[in-house]
């Protein structure tokens, strides 16, 4: 990302940008309130609705809602707003819809408005757990009978100011600026931090019996979800809290650790975070359960990561094939004692666990079961 060189003190010059395409297919009066991440969210939602064959009559029924999270509003739009306001202090120069691009619930509000959703419209802003938290919240709304169908997930836009928030904490990768494909390196001895990415991941949740009845394609059944705060540190992961989050999720799903066939790790390739996550996994699962991280493939898509990586995990479940941790060549001794998948692994996945651990000490875990 050569354009990032203009920022003094920004050590990481590697990013994982997604390509924005066909945004003009969204009518201007809808698009004007969308920053980059909302466009990703709307396009992903369109794909998800088509895949799930959700009829138009359901969308404005009041029984369909959406919960979509992101770490913040569109970082690009927020930067533009400050660039307009700070030099002039003239509010009259701000476009009318800039506010809607900048607010923390921008993805949810834009998807809701674009589709005409009249059920619950909510945002989960829990940093890197936002997407998984949105899915967990949607799961709760359905299982408590408040909604029948939920559009859930996360979205994020790549911007240097977001990268900077990690960079000032020395959490980004900076040693591979000349070899960007070699980073990030989750669990690897040579890992040196995360690489930010962008995009959106959207899943459709539906009451199981209702989905069965209408013959919908069912990728998986959610059988357990849990989120907790670590109550210990705003930025450092904490193995006890990770153990607690996963253990409670297993208890809610009423399954034993050894029944999990695959763990999709959070593992962003930070020195501290990977070590704590590996220790927690080792404590609960030992060296048996296969585990991989997708951050080496797509970077850390932050608020979108839980949803995007869950979708990828569901594809692994469907194919019976575990994708390995890209760039993991030599596991760090501090991340050893767990079953790292370092080559594609054919394996039947009946139960999978997805983890997200966010700044602010927010942990989230979700268990999915392959449909019968």
């Amino acid at each position, binding site marked *: 990302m050569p354009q990032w060189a203009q920022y003094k003190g920004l050590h990481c010059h590697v990013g994982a940008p997604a390509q924005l395409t066909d945004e*003009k297919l969204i009518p*201007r*009066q809808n698009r*004007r309130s969308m920053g980059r991440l909302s466009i990703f969210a709307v396009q992903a939602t369109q794909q998800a609705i088509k895949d799930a064959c959700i009829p138009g009559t359901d969308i404005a029924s009041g029984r369909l809602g959406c919960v979509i999270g992101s770490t913040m509003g569109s970082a690009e739009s927020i930067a533009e707003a400050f660039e307009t306001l700070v030099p002039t202090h003239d509010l*009259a*120069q*701000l*476009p*009318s*819809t800039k506010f809607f691009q900048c607010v923390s619930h921008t993805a949810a509000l834009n998807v809701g408005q674009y589709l005409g959703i009249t059920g619950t419209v909510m945002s989960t802003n829990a940093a890197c757990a936002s997407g998984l938290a949105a899915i967990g919240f949607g799961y709760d709304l359905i299982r408590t009978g408040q909604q029948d169908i939920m559009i859930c997930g996360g979205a994020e836009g790549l911007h240097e100011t977001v990268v900077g928030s990690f960079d000032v904490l020395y959490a980004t990768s900076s040693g591979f600026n000349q070899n960007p494909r070699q980073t990030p390196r989750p669990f690897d001895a040579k890992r040196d931090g995360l690489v930010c990415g962008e995009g959106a991941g959207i899943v459709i949740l539906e009451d199981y019996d209702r989905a069965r009845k209408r013959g919908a394609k069912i990728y998986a059944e959610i059988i357990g979800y849990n989120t907790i705060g670590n109550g210990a540190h705003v930025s450092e992961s904490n193995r006890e809290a990770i153990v607690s989050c996963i253990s409670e999720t297993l208890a809610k799903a009423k399954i034993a650790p050894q029944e999990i066939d695959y763990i999709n790790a959070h593992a962003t390739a930070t020195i501290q975070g990977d070590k704590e996550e590996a220790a927690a996994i080792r404590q609960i699962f030992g060296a048996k359960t296969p585990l991989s991280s997708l951050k080496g493939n797509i970077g850390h898509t932050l608020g979108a990561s839980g949803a995007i990586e869950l979708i990828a995990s569901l594809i692994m479940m469907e194919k019976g094939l575990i994708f390995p941790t890209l760039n993991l060549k030599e596991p760090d001794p501090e991340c050893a004692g767990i079953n790292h998948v370092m080559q594609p692994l054919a394996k039947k996945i009946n139960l999978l666990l997805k983890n997200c651990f966010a700044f602010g000490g927010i942990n989230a875990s979700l268990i999915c079961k392959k449909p019968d």
Partner: protein
Amino acid sequence: MTEAEVIKLTNEVFIDSFEIEQSKLIPQANIFNDLGLDSLDIVDLVVALQKKFGVTIRDDERVRTIRTLGDLQNFILTIKKEIQK
């Protein structure tokens, strides 16, 4: 600034900011009903016109009486003449 220049620059605002086709930009076109702008767009229209013509019209009461593209172009011409005086 000539009338032709005002029309050209005004039309540019509608094309660039609101993605409206040139063929729809006729003087009698109603800004709301024919060109499809709404209350949020009017805010952006004012911002864009101020930038394009170097004028301050945000708090000008006459803005509220504008209905057609022709009204708008005449208003801009009037404003520019007032500034020249």
